[in-house]
């Protein structure tokens, strides 16, 4: 709870009309893509870093939690006020401050919507590769906080690979700048990387310096059908081994395809068990060569059909369908547990076989789709929300994550730990590593006022 006197002081810190306290107004800020619900005590809309600094000083004195929030599209509960407190809605930090076409660098505020930014830089002949499926709702700040990935991770990496520097407000109320505006720099510790992916637990970001690339000249999009799911998984490795690195290499299993079938206009061959969506980009010449190489590899690996997207509309249709998979899962069953596991790429066939075993063993549908090129699969455990099914779902998660760790993988590739995976941290990290991370948290946030209850149990 935020004490009344603190609320009164908050009103003095921020501009009039920038504080919500009515229960109806707060509702929107109580949830995110996880659909879980935790009510905040209040929501503030700060306009400057200095205001945030003052809010922190107050929170440290009065001991109430501060929870930064971007687009509210997080999948691990990073923006949820699990212990109540003040949601810091960053909506007013929504400006693209500068796009430097000479140095291929941009500076943005955290609430810039990812897609808005992508379009803006592309109109200038440049390219910002990170492309989470939620690009139309998620913010750059949220992407940085979770180290979001997306459809182009295979060739272009994840959000963290594009963050050169940050301006942040620390929980103690200090404002610092980290990083560089150069392509390299090794002076001192890498605080930028520490804050990237820290899920809003170490600092509140107020400005981000991003690296941009020149926009690729051309791209080609392909859709490849398979009758045997493991053949599709093996084809992924074969493509990379064939020295083609597609920008995107997505996998969908049969149930995932069913979910979005109505969005796809071209025919899907009978008995299709898996699809690979592949996009190559680069110069006209490279793209033509790569697409032909991909076709050959797919066919020799056992694909049943290969289709090159014929038009821009068809390309859009394919990616639109892909982005809808996650939400459409709930059309099949009322509940789902979403996992975001990553294994070394050539272990994907093992993982898929294991999912089939789990599905049989626990009598639950477990569709999977995702960034196969990165070894990153979004595994969904679908449920009827009965206590029994929920319990079985939890058992699936534990077995799944253990197998992923045994295969040399990680329990989350791009969604973050948040609250949904906090109880599994000890499967991936040894006690000394977790202790060290907690101590780092303690250095930055001695009173644990910033986004408490996340990552660590």
């Amino acid at each position, binding site marked *: 709870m935020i004490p009344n006197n603190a609320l009164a002081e908050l009103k003095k810190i921020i501009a009039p009309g920038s504080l919500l306290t009515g229960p109806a107004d707060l509702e929107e800020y109580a949830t995110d893509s996880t659909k879980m619900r935790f009510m905040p005590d209040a929501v503030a809309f700060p306009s400057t870093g200095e205001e945030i600094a003052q809010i922190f000083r107050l929170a440290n004195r009065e001991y109430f939690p501060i929870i930064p929030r971007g687009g509210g599209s997080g999948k691990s509960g990073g923006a949820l006020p699990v212990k109540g407190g003040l949601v810091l809605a960053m909506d007013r930090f929504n400006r693209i401050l500068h796009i430097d076409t000479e140095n291929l660098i941009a500076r943005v505020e955290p609430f810039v919507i990812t897609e808005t930014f992508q379009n803006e830089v592309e109109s200038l002949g440049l390219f910002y590769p990170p492309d989470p499926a939620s690009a139309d709702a998620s913010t750059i700040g949220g992407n940085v906080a979770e180290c979001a990935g997306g459809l182009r991770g295979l060739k272009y990496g994840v959000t963290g690979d594009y963050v050169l520097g940050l301006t942040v407000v620390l929980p103690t109320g200090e404002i610092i700048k980290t990083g560089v*505006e150069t392509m*390299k720099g090794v*002076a001192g510790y890498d605080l930028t990387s*520490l804050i990237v992916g820290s899920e809003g637990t170490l600092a509140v970001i107020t400005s981000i310096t991003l690296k941009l690339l020149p*926009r690729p000249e051309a791209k080609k999009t392909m859709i490849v059908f398979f009758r045997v799911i493991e053949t599709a998984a093996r084809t992924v490795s074969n493509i990379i081994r064939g020295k083609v690195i597609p920008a995107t290499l997505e996998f969908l299993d049969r149930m995932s395809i069913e979910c979005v079938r109505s969005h796809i206009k071209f025919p899907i061959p009978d008995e299709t068990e898996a699809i690979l969506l592949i996009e190559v980009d680069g*110069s006209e010449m490279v793209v033509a060569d790569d697409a032909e190489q991909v076709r050959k590899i797919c066919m020799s690996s056992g694909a049943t059909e290969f289709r090159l997207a014929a038009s821009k509309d068809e390309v859009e249709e394919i990616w639109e369908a892909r982005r809808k998979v996650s939400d459409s899962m709930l059309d099949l069953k009322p509940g789902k547990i979403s996992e975001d596991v990553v294994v070394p790429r050539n272990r994907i066939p093992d993982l898929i076989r294991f999912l089939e075993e789990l599905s049989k063993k626990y009598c639950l549908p477990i569709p999977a789709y995702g960034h196969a090129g990165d*070894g990153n699969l979004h595994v969904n455990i679908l449920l009827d929300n009965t206590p029994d099914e929920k319990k079985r779902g939890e058992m699936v998660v534990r077995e799944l994550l253990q197998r992923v760790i045994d295969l040399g993988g990680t329990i989350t590739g791009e969604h973050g730990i948040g609250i949904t995976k906090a109880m599994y941290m000890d499967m991936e990290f040894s006690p000394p590593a977790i202790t060290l991370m907690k101590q780092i948290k303690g*250095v930055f946030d001695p009173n644990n006022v910033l986004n408490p209850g996340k990552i660590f149990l």
Partner: protein
Amino acid sequence: MDYKRLDNHDIEMLKGFTAPDRFSTGESVKTLHSKDQSRHVCMLPEAVLWPLNESEVSNILKYSNEQRIPVTAWGAGSSLEGNPLSVCGGIVVDFTMMNRVLDVREEDFQADVEPGVIYKELNKRLRHKGLFFAPDPGADATIGGMIANNSSGTRTVKYGATRANILKLSIVLANGEIIRTGTRASKTSSGYDLINLITGSEGTLGVVTCATLRLRGLPAEFSAAVVSFPSVESAGKAVFEIIRSGLDPAALELLDRGCISLINRNTGMNLMERPTLFIEYHGPSISYIGEVMEVTRELCASSNSLDFRSGIGRDERDKLFSSRHRLGEMIVQNHTDCLFLSADTAVPISAYPEIIAMAREEVEKGGVTAYIFSHAGDGNLHLKFAGRKDNRDDWRVINEINNRVVSKAISLGGTATGEHGVGIGKRAFMAEEHGNSLIWMKKIKELFDPNGILNPGKIFL
């Protein structure tokens, strides 16, 4: 910090953690570990140890931490800022005997290695598998040293610095605890990113005992070009145009006239003695690289290039780049009576022509000897000054110029060090570059190493 000098008991204990033949207090051994390739004066450790495995390292650190004995990790001693020198005495832990390649997983493009592996040796072993580890700092750098300093080299412009090529680390902390961080998966958003915190921390936060490296497929085709320019500025402008165009060179090196003349003398090559770019491309086919070269030729011509030679064969290309890698050595051999200071600033690429012009002007005005050569493609400028050993005037002027160049770079949005690290020599610039975030770096140091035993006297003044 107060540190303890080694006494007989410490020596017996430390010997026990390793073995009598892997522990030395001999003068010649200590001397070999008292100097890197920088100008910094010799600093003798009190003893040198060669551990064989992680648990030995852990025991050494745990004991040293309890006894307040400084511990400095040592790879090849090829650093350029005094990074592994025992400023406060104590022991040097030499990793050259932990030099095994533990596993190569071709399918995953990954290798597990110990820190004493020399990157060139690793690449020799990987060649027949069609793979390589991309960072190439030159010299006989070890993987451990490269991680500690986040080294980069000629290929960084395409493949990133060492940091971009590390997936997983085993680290021994100051108190002897062992942690593993990172994953064999290609990405993760699980927990805080300790890998990037340790990489580039110059052995001040922990000691790496095993690393999982990200490997790359050897490109199907290489091609290189040598381009001469009337001035360093015009070459700098060509660099900017090439990067802007998105051609994605695998190396883009700028050498001034003095460097070229040295290379000609040392290798018998006959390069035009003008400011020169060495350019390399990696690609899937000859036709593709040919197209890229043609665009490059046009861009260079529009920056007034004098001569553009491409299509050079593999042998000549290897000769060019090995001479580029040996340039530092050649400069040292050419001035046997001198000590050297390497400025290592990096600036945003658009400011690159400006910093080069400024540096050259300063050098001419000051009347000192300096070579300009750089990883131009990532805006990284090396200015290697040669000053006579006991000549105070030389060093006064060199230090003044160095300070002005670094301040200029920082004011242009750049950094004091693009790849050599802070070590001893660049500590003075940390406050100027980082402002109040330096305090938070210190707090992290205190958290990881409360007794300050890990490589004391580095990074922070």
